[in-house]
């Protein structure tokens, strides 16, 4: 069964906290990775690989650059 939005959000929060130190509670759907969370492109690659392991959804490089917000990633994983 596919993960719910809440499950993915919680999983992303944990991954982002592990990689960047940003508190998981700050990882909310509307947050922009660059503007709000100050996550650089190298860390985004780490997050994408970790998310792939966690949720089994591969995020190709040409898609990754279009995923601007946490919600974008949730939608991509759910799609």
């Amino acid at each position, binding site marked *: 069964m596919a993960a719910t939005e809440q499950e993915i959000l919680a999983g992303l929060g944990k991954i982002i*906290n*592990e990689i*960047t*130190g940003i508190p998981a509670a700050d990882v909310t759907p509307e947050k922009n990775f660059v503007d709000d969370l100050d996550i650089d492109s*190298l*860390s985004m690659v*780490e997050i994408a*690989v970790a998310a792939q392991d966690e949720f089994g959804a591969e995020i190709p490089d040409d898609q990754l650059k279009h995923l601007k917000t946490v919600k974008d990633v949730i939608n991509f994983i759910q799609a």
Partner: protein
Amino acid sequence: MSTDRVRVVVTGLGATTPLGGDVASTWSALLDGRSGVRPLTEDWVDSVPVKFAGRVAVEPGEVLPRPEARRLDRAEQFALIAARQAWQDAGTPEVEPTRLGVVVGSGIGGITTILDAYDTFKEKGWTRLSPFTVPMLMPNGSAGWIGIDIGAKGGVHATVSACATGAEAIGYAIDMIRSGRVDVVVAGGAEAAIHPLNIGSFAAMRAMSTRNDEPQRASRPFDKGRDGFVLGEGAGIVVLESEAHARARGAKIYAVAAGVGYSSDAHHIAQPEPSGAGVQLAMRRVLADAGLTGSDIRHVNAHATSTPAGDVVETIAIKEAIGSHPIVTATKSMTGHLLGGAGGIESIFTILALSERIVPATINVDDLDDGIEVDIARTEARKLPDGQIAAVNNSFGFGGHNVAVAFTTV
């Protein structure tokens, strides 16, 4: 001493070593004559002939937040920890960013990153490599991260000269300030090379002690029974500053970084030149550069690694270039050999010897080798005289690099 040249002073010290997680604990252990060498407990130890090393006393993971630690090579972790200590010790000075520089090197660079990343690559493919692999393995990584940390825009550099790296970094920093390019430089060296490949490779050179039954007795510079160096790890970093800049902000001044002398052997890629001519030249040059005479030098922190080839030749060179009067010590007897980090921590020890007027004793000198005609501090720490005095830190490296750095009391 020329009066028209910028005087450079030492205003901050930072270190993480096999003896302690900071300068104070390391210095106190040195004065107590303690060894930081321990048996290795890793599962790979059976694959190498050397079963001990000087691991840092405080693991960097206990100091750095995990998100930061995971994107740094172990040598970069040591460097950043030591640099932050030094910067804080200097009073976190306000410096115009373009007048602030960094010179921090490593002898080997991010070798554990390279080897671990190659395992990952072979087992799982390129997509599983950390995107920070390159900045973790590059030998200038420590300098880059420190530059970001303190906002240095005046030039960030990395020296690479094997076991002379840390001293060369400090020498380069002195010249940067003298040239007028910058007012403040964070300088030193770091190394994290305790890995079976490195131990195996140094052992293949027959350069390492194999005194496996007595690890804390293995590093014994100047002793007849020495059989090689003991690998250590860690970092030593100082804040250097033009005297005018330091005085203007009322900084605490440990010592004057009075000069640097360089030479090169052009003899053998790894063996010291047997007459010690190159080492002598570096010491003669540091005296000239600092405007000092041999009689001003009251203490030498020797390179003395505990290998059969180097230690005695160095003492003869000290006698020839400086004289037989300085109190000579080899702190590697307690820290092990930090390779690129050695010149950093040993410059700190030289500075503290001057500012506290005490020289830590070399441990494990049970039977002084023949031909040593300088005053070796052994059995107990030795007092340095009052008044204006100077000291030299020697660091030499594979490749034939010879570096001597001179410091004087304020």
